[in-house]
């Protein structure tokens, strides 16, 4: 039985990243789905871009921005004495960036699929935009959002290139399961690699199946 620390770490990082990505993605998706403004399609495309970059390259740009001497990271370091580099928070940042586009795109499609008639009915029944969003739009878009969230979570779990660049590969601290697998493959230790992949797959399949089950119970009546 191999060391399972990387797995716990992965789950923690992926969960945090998915949560963060969810918040941002839902916000932007709502904005682009419900309002027509100049440059909307452009914004949409920009927000999808992280998907196009090879993760390592994305990691490189993340360092340029968030590194100790980066634009934002430099400021953080100088004024707050903080650095995201080589911390698990850094890993969360990287995983958030790589999984964000998946959630954003799914959420936008899901929001666009919600009939505006229901929203109008809710408005007449006294809801402000915020309440309409949380009580009508969000639940009616739940199926698409859930699919997007699962994609994002899986992607965050599997991320390797970007996380590695930002958080390093520090055993017990930032070494995620994906890195452990990569190391094993790179070192030619296929037994270890296969074991790790098997464990990861089982964990993932369990999570995915459970989410599906929960979701289909929630929508049983519909």
């Amino acid at each position, binding site marked *: 039985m191999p060391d399972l620390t990387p797995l716990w770490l992965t789950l923690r990082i992926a969960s945090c990243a998915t949560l963060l990505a969810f918040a941002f993605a839902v916000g932007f998706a709502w904005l682009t789905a419900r309002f027509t403004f100049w440059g909307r399609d452009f914004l949409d495309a920009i927000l999808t871009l992280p998907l196009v970059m090879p993760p390592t390259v994305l990691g490189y740009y993340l360092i340029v921005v968030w590194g100790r001497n980066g634009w934002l990271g430099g400021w953080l370091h100088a004024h707050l004495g903080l650095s995201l580099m080589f911390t698990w928070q850094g890993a969360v940042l990287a995983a958030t960036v790589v999984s964000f586009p998946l959630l954003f795109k799914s959420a936008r499609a899901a929001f666009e699929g919600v009939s505006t008639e229901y929203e109008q009915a809710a408005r007449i029944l006294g809801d402000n935009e915020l309440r309409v969003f949380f009580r009508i739009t969000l639940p009616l878009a739940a199926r698409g959002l859930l699919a997007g969230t699962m994609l994002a979570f899986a992607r965050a779990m599997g991320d390797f290139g970007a996380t590695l660049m930002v958080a390093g*590969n520090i055993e017990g601290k930032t070494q995620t399961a994906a890195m452990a697998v990569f190391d094993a493959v790179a070192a030619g230790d296929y037994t270890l690699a296969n074991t790790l992949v098997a464990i990861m797959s089982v964990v993932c399949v369990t999570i995915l199946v459970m989410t599906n089950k929960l979701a289909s119970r929630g929508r049983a009546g519909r």
Partner: protein
Amino acid sequence: PGQVGADPGLLVSAAASLSESFKEIGRSFAAKNPGVKVRFNFAGSGPLLQQIAQGAPVDLFASADQETMDKAEKGGFLLPGSRVDFTRNSLVLITPMYMSVVKGLGDLKLGRVQKIAIGNPASVPAGRYARAALERQGLWEPLASKVVRGISVKQTLEYVLRGEVEAGFVYATDAAGTKDKVRVVAEIPTAAPIVYPVAVVASSANKEKARAFIGYLRSAEAQAILLRHGFKAELSSLSAQTKLIPFGCKDP
């Protein structure tokens, strides 16, 4: 159609650290041998070996360490007798240009040194050499908590370049490429010299041309190019093999 095996040219799988110098050598080789097209496939030595093991149509394999080549030989992927060493590299300790804390191996223990970048010893040869060197000095244990392990030497270099770590272990060739941003603090002696081997792949359809390329690699011309990129000449084997007459190659 679309198969590399049908291509009359040569396909060379080479370690990523060789990419700049090999591209140059490839051009000059092509200039001397108009009929032969050389293509390169650069990646880490490990993935390259796996590709060969799975039947990638490669003619030549140049690795950055002996272990990987040993594995290839044991697996029977190499043409027996074709393996030769062609160049050397060395391990150096570098630090960002504007940082002056680290002046030698001993300084790594200082409190002001928070992070040290090393290639992952499990998979990166440079990391293995660095670890061995540190262990010999009794530094590996005390420094373990500061070590950030990179996926490759290039990443180790990247961390130093960006000033995220106070020091890192890379090859002299890596440091040579970024002279203006990093400073070489010390050359780290390794137990065995870092020697790059090259060999013809057993399944190659162009064994003659492959041999010719190996021959050219060890010619003075190619060695000069390697030297310019920070490598060191592998003189011992050079003298022994020059009599080999390369196919389609004008006598130097």
